[in-house]
């Protein structure tokens, strides 16, 4: 697309003759000359390519046969090794079956089908002005006919009705989807005065003397899966899991109002991270640090489980514990704050 150039320059012949004006930009040279492939010019190459394509299709057929044979003769069996073998053989058969067809088709296209570049015209996306005007005219006529412009109340009425109609589906859908909607149950766990601490998952109670310095116990409340809890024990467990460790009392720093929450160096904290709720379980015995594996929030168990690294903001809630008269560890009460991640009405 040449336009008349704005510059008159000398040509390279150095003769000083004034040449024609140059275009602002280079012209598109058009499609380059077609380069034949070997298979276009050499019939032997074309025959070889055909044989290759057939061979690839044959490979696919062999793959399918292999798959069916493996399915029939190599069942899963009962061992890891037999499952692995079955998986491998079936998968390799499927791979050959599929890849063979694909490679054959592509090789066929590349070597034997025409690779002559073809050009097709593009047209601007917009409709012609005539079509546009016709469309506008049709719409205008239709709107006139419906009378919606003259009778404004129609417009308001149809919009109101349509907007409100989906409520018939939305209201019961949203209303029923949330269970009983009692979000206040988030505040309370199964822990209460006198509830024994038991091992997770066996449920056997724990004696204080069994908890030696440096040991870690994963704890659930006594009777978690029994009685009235049986049908929703997992929701209760999701709030009630506790991590219990014994420190040397000399290492334990306690707030004044929590000095009686531990028992001879044994402390218990909620195991649900105050960041977004993963179980915080990586206890480092020597440093007394508790690490959450999900986002690396780190809590210092020797100092009220306060946050010393990571995205958590609040310390883990502490479970006040003591022993009963048989020497088993029991809770003194529920947690004094909702466990787990923060939410809007947490403090209310």
């Amino acid at each position, binding site marked *: 697309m040449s336009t008349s150039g704005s510059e008159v320059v000398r040509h390279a012949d150095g003769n000083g003759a004034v040449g024609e004006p140059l275009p602002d930009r280079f012209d598109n040279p058009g499609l380059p000359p077609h380069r034949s*492939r070997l298979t276009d010019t050499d019939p032997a190459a074309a025959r070889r390519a055909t044989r290759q394509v057939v061979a690839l299709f044959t490979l696919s057929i062999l793959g399918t046969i292999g798959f069916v044979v493996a399915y029939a003769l190599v069942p899963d069996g009962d061992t890891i090794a037999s499952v692995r073998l079955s998986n491998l053989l079936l998968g390799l058969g499927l791979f050959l079956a599929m890849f063979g067809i694909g490679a054959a088709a592509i090789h066929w296209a590349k070597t034997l089908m025409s690779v002559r570049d073809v050009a097709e015209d593009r047209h601007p996306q917009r409709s012609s002005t005539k079509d546009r005007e016709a469309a506008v005219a049709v719409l205008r006529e239709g709107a006139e006919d419906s009378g919606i412009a003259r009778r404004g109340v129609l417009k308001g009425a149809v919009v109101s009705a349509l907007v409100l109609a989906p409520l018939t589906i939305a209201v019961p859908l949203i209303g029923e989807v949330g269970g009983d909607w009692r979000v206040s149950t988030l505040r309370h766990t199964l822990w209460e005065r006198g509830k024994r601490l038991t091992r997770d998952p066996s449920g056997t109670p724990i004696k204080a003397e069994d908890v030696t310095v440096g040991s870690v116990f994963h704890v659930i409340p006594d009777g978690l899966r029994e009685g009235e809890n049986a049908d929703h024990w997992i929701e209760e467990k999701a709030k009630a899991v506790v991590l219990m460790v014994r420190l040397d009392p000399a290492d334990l720093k306690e707030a004044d109002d929590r000095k009686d929450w531990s028992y001879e160096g044994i402390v218990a904290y909620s195991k649900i991270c105050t960041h977004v709720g993963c179980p915080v379980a990586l206890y480092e015995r020597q440093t007394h640090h508790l690490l959450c594996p999900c986002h690396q929030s780190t809590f210092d168990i020797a100092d009220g489980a306060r946050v010393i690294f990571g995205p958590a903001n609040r310390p883990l809630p502490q479970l006040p514990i003591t022993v009963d008269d048989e020497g088993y560890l029991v809770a003194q009460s529920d947690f004094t704050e909702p466990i787990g991640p923060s939410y809007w009405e947490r403090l209310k």
Partner: protein
Amino acid sequence: MKAIADRRHHRMAPVVLLVMALLITGAVYAALTPTPAGATVATQTDVDAGRALFQANCATCHGTGARGGDGVPSLIGVGAAAVDFQVSTGRMPMQASGPQAAEKPPVLDAEQTRQLAAYVASLGPGPSIPAADQVDPAKGDPATGMALFRTNCAMCHGATGKGGALTEGKSAPSLGDATPTQIYEAMLTGPASMPVFNDANLTPEEKRDVIALLDEQKAGSPGGADLGGVGPVSEGLWTWVVGMGLLIGCAVWIGAKSS
């Protein structure tokens, strides 16, 4: 033979016969009894040899009386199990200071380790090296083991014991190379950052179940290569390297002009 037969009525003959019987019985017993790994009773020579090894290899950090101090733990009461674990995995003697003692090829051989363990055990009572049947995977139940592993171990060591990170450069190691004895001893003594799983927390049978589970893991993955067994991160890496790599490679092949 004539000399022995002539003295068969000697008054010391019964004594000689008794001593011979005792020696023969003792020898046969010693020859036929299976020796439990490491569960031999330590003799005083073992303790003395152990003391010499201790002074040569350990006393520089742990003190000549093994009382430790200044960031180095005391070894009084750690028991033979702790020593056997630390020394047989090569963690001790510690070569370079770092966030935790690194596992490396052991410096002392099995005999020396046993002697060293005997010496430290003599300093104060502590957990002893487990007997062979206590750590025999065939006797454990992998189902119980897996349930216990999931609750007590996977958070640090990973779901299949491939290891995991702790804070400040520490880590929980991979368990694939550990022997059943070492696994038992680690649970019992709580080396480095690991908590102590005393026998009230995980009973000896439960410890054996965990060992049985880890033994099962050696069979590998039924799905093929386990890609490190560390979960979705390595899966994502291989998605791009193998999956997209192969597919983009094929796309380049498809788009390339044939010669």
